[in-house]
């Protein structure tokens, strides 16, 4: 049963000193699906991604990716299994150029000796150029990453994940701090890169969510409050109550 889904999360729980940030969560993401997770601040969205990528260890429950149990894997093995994760604040190497940021992320020479012997061969260069174009940074290849605009940094981090060609890509608030036109481009980008892989995107901007989501999961106090297509979720009385509050 679980093999039909790319990602199967069941009964996932984590408690920080007794506080359950994620509480018995079930989540099923299909292949080629673009899932958006929304929810008020502190709902546990980031923590869910932390659990999947191994940054935080679950107190209970299971996370299966293509039938492999991830909860006991070290982080780098989860990545090598095909899970990529973008952090909420752009996490790039500010002192290196865009090109070097992408090169470091290229999935070859990941061992100590592999990295000592790594050569920037033609296929590496081609792949870097291809990704740079996808993330709208072809012109900035030799720019130091710290000098990019906030939106460009977000794109760069997405590119650093794309170059690894992950089967599951998880993006935490990818359009935060972006201008309207940058959001437009990012929506296109996400629609494009969701082909052939599964995407989990955390986002607040409802207009943006509408443009990209196949299915939306609403998280509240570490639990799934509602799930379904955008319209159904937006008209769900429980969701309205949580968002508008009392």
């Amino acid at each position, binding site marked *: 049963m679980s093999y039909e889904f790319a990602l199967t999360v069941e009964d996932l729980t984590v408690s920080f000193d007794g506080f359950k940030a994620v509480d018995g969560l079930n989540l099923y993401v299909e292949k080629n699906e673009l899932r958006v997770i929304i929810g008020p601040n502190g709902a546990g969205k980031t923590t869910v991604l932390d659990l999947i990528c191994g940054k935080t260890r679950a107190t209970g429950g299971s996370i299966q990716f293509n039938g492999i149990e991830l909860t006991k894997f070290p982080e780098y093995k989860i990545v090598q299994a095909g899970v990529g994760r973008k952090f909420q604040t752009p996490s790039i190497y500010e002192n*290196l150029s865009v090109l*070097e940021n992408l090169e470091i992320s290229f999935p070859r020479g990941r061992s100590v000796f592999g990295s000592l012997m790594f050569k920037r061969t033609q296929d590496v260069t081609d792949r870097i150029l291809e990704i740079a174009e996808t993330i709208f940074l072809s012109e900035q290849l030799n720019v130091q990453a710290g000098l990019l605009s906030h939106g460009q940094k977000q794109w760069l*981090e997405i590119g650093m994940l794309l170059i690894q060609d992950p089967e599951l890509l998880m993006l935490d608030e990818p359009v935060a701090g972006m201008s309207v036109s940058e959001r437009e481009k990012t929506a296109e980008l996400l629609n494009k890169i969701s082909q052939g892989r599964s995407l989990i995107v955390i986002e607040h901007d409802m207009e943006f969510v509408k443009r990209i989501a196949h299915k939306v999961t609403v998280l509240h106090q570490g639990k799934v409050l509602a799930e379904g297509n955008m319209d159904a979720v937006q008209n769900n009385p429980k969701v309205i109550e949580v968002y508008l509050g009392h």
Partner: protein
Amino acid sequence: MNAFYSNWLGGKKGAIELAILAAFIFIVMPLWLDIFRLNLVGKYLTYAFAAVGLVMVWGYGGILSLGQGVFFGLGGYCMAMYLKLEASDPVSTAHQTTPGIPDFMDWNQVTQLPLFWEPFHSLIFTLAAVIMVPLVLAYVISTAMFKRRVGGVYFSIITQAIAAILTILVVGQQGMTGGINGITDLKTLHGWNINTESAKYILYYVNGALLLGVIMLCRFILSSKFGRLLLAMRDKEDRVRFSGYDVANFKIFTFSMGAMISAIGGAMFILQVGFMSPSLIGIVPSIEMVIFAAIGGRVSLVGAVYGTLLVNYGKSAFSESFPSLWLLFMGALFIGVVMFFPNGLAGLYDVYLKGRVESLAGKFKKKNPPAILTPAKTELQNEL
């Protein structure tokens, strides 16, 4: 050849720096100084190994080791054991209660060579041990720490504790280690008298060549993807980890390499200075080594060499007249450099001299150096 130029020498800037350093060590110093003083410089240059190792470990790896003296000392003691055994042949030690064992053992009523000394009769074993003993210790320490994600200040404190423990061990086990007096009265290396003037010259040059070789090896490592990963880890360790790298392995490698480099310095120290003692391996010398690197500029491999020479010159000049003030002065110097010149001497060179030296070098050069692949590469090289 191009790869050699840009990876091992470090491109134009790196090649010029290396050439200046080589000229300084191999030509200027020997012409300028008598053998007594040159031998002193040779001694300082052995400390420079530790400082160069720290540039890798601390400057690039972001791991502040306060225990480099441990590895320097282990390399030195391994070499010293071989030399001491050679100096303790039964004929020259015939007057001892037990001839054929090192004199300090005899003084301590030890009547048989301890088992762990035995293999040090072999030069090959000794040379391997000079590298392997510190390397294995560094590997074990760093694996235990970094696999558990212990880092930062905690790691520094652990390294310092190890320096303290080793000192106590060496001092306490007088019969096996020579204790506080150390290992002295060394004469020959595989039959070759190391105390003659010509031997001192040869050892000075061997030492200088090894130092330059080590710097080039470090250049090669830093110019590879490994080097960029170190910079990346210093900046955003989690991003590296979540890009599929086992971050701990990179730190373990860097720390172990720094230890090995330091150990080579220790072995060269004993060959040139002729004794080894616990005063060289404890907390104070370990911290001094950090200061050498800081003064030189902690991300500059050649800077570390000049930093070491300068501080040691200052130490011998200053401590002759005001011995009690030297430690205070050095502490103040360290704080001053860290606060006002975080890039040390190398930073001053970059600001005031680099342009002039390079244009001068350009005049002498007929052939243009090969263009470096991409502008991105040059940016990185500037940092090396």
